[in-house]
């Protein structure tokens, strides 16, 4: 009898609290979006499941002694996002960017989304119920970088409490890039501009591809060492891939290692989606700001491309400017698709990969600035 009472008092029914139920529903929503709508499933399946697990009453899966608590140490130490970034680096081809280096400017312009979001967060702080410190604002702003591991790395350093909301916003909007970007791209360009065909990319030798990651790391070292962990691990992955002599390490970094870390990282991010931290007005603010960040980043990239066309002979299709937000390779595919609407023979994919990977560098640099000045 006593056992039954004890058991009853340890059921979820007895212990459930409203906010936990809401957070579980959020977890199910993420799973639905990931599985049925194809929203960045590799991250959102573990994140959504982690959100569910960490809100199970009594079980304490995200509390000290629970598995999600231990997995979160991988984020707290920065090891997981950096290992993911190494794997992404190994999967990245800098060839198109090296063939047309001025597309780096598009990757720079798109970071405008980050800094306007920062201002937006500070402005929202005026609304009662929203409390964003400068650190919080900087962590939210990085959503505009459209780069998951960078956002998680920065948020874990500047605003761990907001990590769940920031990661969810970042991956959700990355998944929504095909819906968010095209209207903005069409609104800011004429059909003629969208039809611009670009010159074929020059051949890039392997020597250049090997030197580039080292050069990028050196520039980071000289100008912005605070970005060096992110840029460094990215460059290590890239170098392992292009140098050709450590193929087995490169393949493992791109496959098994990144897969293992993705499962762990996703679950650990989900474990930060506790009701106390997530069910706040601030989360709505974060979601709103994230959407604004993506829109401004897209617009900045397109407008920068139009500006460059005023000063340059070799024309740039302004659509590829939108790829400067990162969201690799989704944003580049979107640029290609919108371009095909106006000119069915115009394949922009490879041209858009340049600003796309430039956007990754750009947001890592922006992250370095924020970590250096705010952290």
């Amino acid at each position, binding site marked *: 009898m006593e056992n039954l009472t004890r058991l009853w008092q340890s059921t979820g029914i007895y212990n459930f609290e409203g906010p936990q139920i809401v957070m579980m529903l959020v977890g199910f929503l993420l799973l639905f979006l990931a599985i049925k709508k194809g929203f960045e499933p590799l991250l959102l399946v573990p994140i959504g499941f982690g959100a569910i697990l960490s809100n199970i009453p009594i079980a304490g899966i995200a509390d000290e002694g629970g598995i999600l608590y231990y997995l979160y140490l991988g984020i707290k130490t920065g090891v997981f996002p950096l290992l993911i970034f190494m794997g992404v680096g190994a999967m990245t081809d800098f060839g198109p960017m090296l063939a047309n280096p001025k597309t*780096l400017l598009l990757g720079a312009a798109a970071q405008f989304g980050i*800094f306007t979001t920062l201002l937006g967060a500070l402005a929202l702080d005026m609304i009662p119920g929203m409390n964003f410190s400068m650190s919080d604002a900087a962590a939210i702003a990085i959503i505009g970088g459209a780069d998951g591991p960078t956002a998680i790395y920065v948020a874990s350093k500047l605003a761990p409490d907001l990590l769940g909301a920031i990661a969810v916003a970042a991956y959700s909007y990355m998944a929504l890039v095909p819906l968010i970007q095209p209207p903005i791209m069409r609104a800011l360009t004429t059909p003629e501009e969208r039809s611009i065909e670009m010159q074929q990319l020059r051949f890039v030798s*392997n020597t250049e591809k090997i030197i580039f990651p080292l050069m990028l790391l050196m520039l980071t070292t000289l100008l912005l060492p605070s970005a060096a962990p992110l840029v460094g691990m990215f460059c290590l992955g890239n170098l392992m891939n292009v140098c050709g002599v450590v193929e087995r390490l490169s393949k493992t970094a791109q496959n098994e290692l990144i897969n293992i870390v993705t499962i762990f990282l996703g679950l650990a991010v989900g474990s930060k989606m506790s009701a106390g931290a997530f069910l706040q007005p601030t989360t709505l603010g974060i979601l709103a700001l994230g959407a604004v960040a993506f829109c401004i980043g897209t617009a900045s990239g397109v407008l920068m491309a139009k500006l460059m066309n005023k000063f340059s002979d070799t024309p740039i299709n302004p659509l590829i400017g939108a790829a400067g937000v990162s969201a690799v390779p989704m944003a580049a595919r979107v640029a290609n698709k919108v371009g095909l609407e106006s000119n069915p023979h115009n394949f922009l994919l490879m041209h858009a990969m340049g600003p796309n990977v430039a956007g990754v560098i750009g947001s890592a640099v922006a992250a370095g600035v924020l970590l250096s000045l705010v952290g």
Partner: protein
Amino acid sequence: MMAFCIVLRMNETMAQGIELMLTGMGIVFLFLVMLIGAVKLMAYLVATFLPEAEPVSPTASSAPAANTVTPVVAAAITAAVHQHRATHK
């Protein structure tokens, strides 16, 4: 009085934010412009001192091979890959 203070603080924070924005975008552009210069310099130096022959139509050579795959061979390929996967699991 308190409202005044808050407005003052806001303005101060926003001013900090704007300064951060200008600094940040400045650094981002400075960094990437320098990177453009470095990439161009590297391309020039590599082309001059370490030239590498561009592979002649790298995809053309493999395309014919792919086109000449007969049905029986296609079946073999499929089966081999399937079998390999099955055994690899």
